């Protein structure tokens, strides 16, 4: 993840995405080490800050990375100013850190307020006004999952128009298997994302094909390779291509 151990004497695990910007990170470094904010060891903090934001440009958007880098630059500048010898008689000159300290304290104040407001928000969310519980919309049949027992399903499949009374001449009956129908389903679903059950079985005239085709699609649905959908009882039964079977 985005955790980093700052390369310093203390081992800080800093997850930069957790922070609300450079001031937040800097305050974290200062407050978690019991550092006196009015006497920040700037060299140490700068090193920790830079270590914490290492690789920031890869993990944050350019703009957010820029915010952290700008602060790093400010810290380095203050560090340099601290190293300059102070001339005698200029003891009252402003500490180069003071502007940063002012910003940190001001930011910290609002960060605290934000925590208090966050608690207030949570407390307020426990109270619900009129209209919270909405009237239930009528269920959309299209969106209902198809949950039918196998005998109910068979009943529908068998209720399909009976084949014409004219019987073809008897020929040796070739066994019709579910596996064979499964292959045909795959073939049909390769061309179209969904196939209506009725049109799929139309090419055969005997019920056994319809039943086997039906069992085949139940088997496929069970294996999660197709999805079945029927808008209303006795309506068109649609067989949808399942996800992730492209290789078939």
């Amino acid at each position: 993840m985005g955790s980093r151990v700052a390369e310093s004497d203390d081992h800080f695990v800093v997850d930069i995405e957790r922070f609300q910007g450079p001031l937040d990170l800097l305050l974290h470094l200062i407050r978690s080490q019991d550092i006196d904010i009015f006497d920040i060891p700037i060299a140490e903090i700068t090193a920790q800050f830079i270590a914490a934001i290492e690789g920031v440009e890869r993990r944050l958007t350019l703009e957010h990375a820029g915010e952290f880098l700008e602060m790093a630059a400010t810290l380095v500048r203050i560090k340099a100013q601290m190293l300059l010898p102070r001339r005698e008689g200029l003891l009252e000159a402003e500490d180069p850190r003071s502007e940063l300290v002012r910003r940190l304290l001001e930011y910290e104040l609002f960060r605290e307020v934000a925590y208090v407001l966050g608690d207030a928000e949570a407390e307020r969310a426990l109270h619900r006004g009129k209209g919270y519980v909405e009237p239930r919309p009528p269920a959309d049949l299209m969106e209902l999952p198809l949950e039918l027992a196998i005998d109910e399903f068979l009943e529908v499949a068998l209720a399909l128009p009976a084949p014409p009374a004219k019987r073809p001449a008897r020929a040796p009956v070739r066994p019709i298997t579910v596996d064979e129908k499964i292959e045909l389903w795959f073939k049909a679903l390769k061309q179209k994302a969904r196939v209506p059950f009725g049109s799929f079985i139309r090419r055969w005239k005997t019920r056994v094909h319809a039943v086997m085709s039906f069992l085949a699609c139940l088997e496929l649905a069970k294996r999660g390779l197709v999805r079945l959908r029927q808008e209303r009882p006795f309506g068109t039964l649609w067989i949808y291509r399942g996800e992730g079977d492209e290789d078939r």
Partner: protein
Amino acid sequence: MKATRIVEAVLFASETPLAPAEIARASSDLTPAQVEEAIGELCREYEREERAFQIYPLGDGYQILTRPEYATYLERFDSITRTQRLSRAAVETLAIVAYRQPVSRLEIEELRGVNVAGVLRNLQERGLIEVVERAEGLGRPLLYGTTRRFLDHFGLRSLEDLPRPEDLQITLRAER
């Protein structure tokens, strides 16, 4: 008709907080002061009867809301009106707007050290802040302030309810 019951009927039928003056419109015999009095009476009644709701002050108005102990039961009704919690960035930005209003985007960015354009737009869309005026000077930047809905969202009566800086727990506040 008893004033208390009229006030109760109006509050019961409302989905948003109503100010006493707004409630008083229900009857020509009703004054805002009487409305306040009736609300006090209703509050005591609901308390006594251990109702699941109470009348809460929100912003400059009042609204009947369920009591917090029933929140877990209501959460089961996964309603779309459920108020979404704000992000930390949003709450920090709101805190600054609340204390410093009217405030420009630039001032907020200086305080937080980050860009807040997106957060401001989001807060404005949610009706928690609004543009209150334009500043004088270069570019006449927009100045933002908090709305009535802001108070409602945090259960505050007014901006006076915001924590005072001296009440906050700021660690290691060194003397200077």
